[in-house]
């Protein structure tokens, strides 16, 4: 897997099963509990990681795979650094089309909203394909004066 070059404080893998979302939420909660000031960041990290994981399982062919996706996180210099990898079909999130969030109710199409949220919450998203893995590195700046989300 391609994101082993940086030491991370949280490091876990998920099987290709949507029911793993509960375990994902637990891992994110544990990570955020380790750092004062990250309590309000838990929602955002959960959201981003769910979107990426569900996309890999439902659209990337990871459904049923053992250790289909791996997550690493660390907190330093006021930002949470996240590496997300999955063994799904090649998919470069950074090149995915933008969702139309201004479309009226009747014009809202399925798909794209999750990626839009990832882009809203994370910065510096990079993608590479390595040894059969999609590897995303990104970070989330933690505001000194926390907003609620």
């Amino acid at each position: 897997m391609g994101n082993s070059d940086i030491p991370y404080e949280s490091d876990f893998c998920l099987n290709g099963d949507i029911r793993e979302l509960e375990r994902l939420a637990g891992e994110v909660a544990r990570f955020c509990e380790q750092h004062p000031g990250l309590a309000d960041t838990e929602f955002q990290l959960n959201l981003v990681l769910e979107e990426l994981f569900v996309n890999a399982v439902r659209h990337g062919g990871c459904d049923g795979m053992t250790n289909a996706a791996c997550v690493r996180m660390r907190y330093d210099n006021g930002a949470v650094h996240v590496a997300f990898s999955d063994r799904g079909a090649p998919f470069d999130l950074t090149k995915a089309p933008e969702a139309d969030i201004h479309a009226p109710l009747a014009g809202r199409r399925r798909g794209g909203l999750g990626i839009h949220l990832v882009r809203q919450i994370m910065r510096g998203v990079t993608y590479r394909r390595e040894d059969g893995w999609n590897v995303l590195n990104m970070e989330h700046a933690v505001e000194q004066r926390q907003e609620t989300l």
Partner: protein
Amino acid sequence: MIQLTEESKSGWCVVGVRGRADAESADALEAALRSAVEGHPKVAADLAGLDYISSAGLRALIQAARAAQSKGVELAFCSPTASVKKVFDMSGLQQILKVQGDMPC
């Protein structure tokens, strides 16, 4: 985990939504809202207990709102937490759903 309840109150069908609206629970959320929309002219989704929502949960709300619109049913999404409201904002849902701070009944 999501908890869904339904009760009648002052002419409204109130659907209580508590917990997480994620990819695992979104179908149940959509079904509960659609069921309420099928049988009542005015539906209020009480989101005060909704701790978390992802795009899957948002899609459930969008689908329910579409169903309500097609049937001429009034569907209000009420009392979202600041975190959930911010996801609505990021997704442009504030403009297409009827979101309000207080319950109508």
